[in-house]
């Protein structure tokens, strides 16, 4: 009986540790996919970006972020416009992250700190990126839902990517009277321009 009890306690211990480390392990795995894509010289620039885009779309709360950054314009729009906007936004998000990560691809990194914010039910994971002259810390905000993790924000130098995008989008949306359909055209054009830059 003692043996079974020991096994039981051991399993509980292992499960708990697995659970707490899982977020960081998952994040490391996904970051490595992106960074390895940059190191893989056999990939064409286009295929490299598509691989990164797939990784980002699989792991970011793209739809939720899209809705948040659209602000007031979201409410006013019909379902098909929202769908187009979400697709455009997901590509936009991927282009932003890919472009940022490109700069870190030749540097080493470490996930230095993982902290669970119980109030907001968000895990904050610090990624320290080292260069010859110092280091920069990128904080990933990760939320768990339906038994899986989603990145909901990235913070660099106290600047939240999502808050910045919301401000930027709101400024542009004001110019088109909060018309998400018109904004989709602007976003599509910007994506095209960014895509050409990253794949050239």
């Amino acid at each position: 009986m003692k043996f079974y009890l020991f096994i039981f306690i051991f399993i509980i211990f292992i499960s708990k540790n697995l659970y707490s480390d899982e977020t960081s392990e998952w994040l490391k795995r996904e970051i490595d996919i992106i960074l390895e894509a940059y190191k893989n010289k056999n990939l064409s620039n286009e295929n490299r970006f598509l691989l990164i885009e797939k990784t980002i779309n699989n792991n970011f709360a793209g739809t939720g972020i899209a809705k948040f950054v659209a602000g007031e314009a979201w409410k006013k729009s019909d379902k098909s416009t929202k769908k187009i906007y979400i697709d455009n936004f997901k590509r936009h998000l991927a282009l932003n992250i890919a472009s940022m990560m490109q700069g870190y691809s030749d540097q080493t990194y470490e996930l230095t700190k993982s902290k669970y914010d119980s109030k907001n039910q968000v895990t904050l994971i610090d990624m320290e990126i080292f260069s010859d002259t110092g280091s920069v810390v990128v904080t990933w905000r990760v939320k768990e839902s339906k038994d899986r993790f989603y990145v909901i924000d990235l913070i660099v130098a106290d600047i939240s990517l999502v808050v910045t995008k919301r401000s930027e989008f709101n400024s542009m949306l004001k110019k088109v009277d909060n018309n998400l359909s018109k904004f989709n055209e602007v976003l599509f054009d910007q994506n095209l321009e960014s895509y050409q830059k990253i794949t050239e």
Partner: protein
Amino acid sequence: MSKKIVILFFLFFSVLSYKVIASDADQVNTDSEDFETTTIEDEIYDPFEPVNRAIFSFNNVADRIVLEPIAKGYKKLPSPLQSGISNFLSNLRAPLVVVNQLLQGQGENAVQSSGRFIVNSTVGVFGLFDVAEKIGLEEKEEDYGQTLATWGVGDGFYIVLPLFGPSNLRDTSGMVLTMMTDPINAYAVSEGEAWLVPMRTAVNAVDTRSQIIDEVNALRDNSVDYYAAVRSSYYQNRKAAINNVDDSELTPLPLISIEFE
């Protein structure tokens, strides 16, 4: 019976662990149903936006033509040399950091910064080496803009300064105060070496820009409105500096719904 219970628990935890491990293999299904938008709105007051945008465009061109290429060249210098320049410039700022820490009632930080200045100016060979960091004296930045904010002075309106970039009324006043009271600049002027003042500012700009080449380029290349993105970034960064936020946990959390991912 007891064996059965243990086996049951074993299976339960195995399934739980498996679910956690296998979760990332799930596919995201999106359903763009309507949900209420969050109420966080921008608080940035920018009444001179057209003028600011014009200056911003000028600064952007100046950055592309002058600052960015120089910063990229600077990045090619041997890293000890870059660190040395960066440390030296940071050490020159220390006396005013101490003044501002005292003005904000941060006695402990002021003592620490004074210690940093003494150690780095002597053992650290005029600030070229950050010896203080190695003995636990952490670098903390404070300026007049932050002091004024601590005293309750509001942001005022947003301004884009030619060549100096994003600011606001309060921080611009702080910058003027810095220029007027900086002891190193005052010494250089009194010695008839006033040219050192703009030179110091320029080297500072190159050093700072060299540290954010990738981030700035990522933002510039992928923004639908680069001006608004920089404006928001400036305010977020300053807000964190004023509140002395060292922990990302304190950065405002956007309300992201993931219920329909």
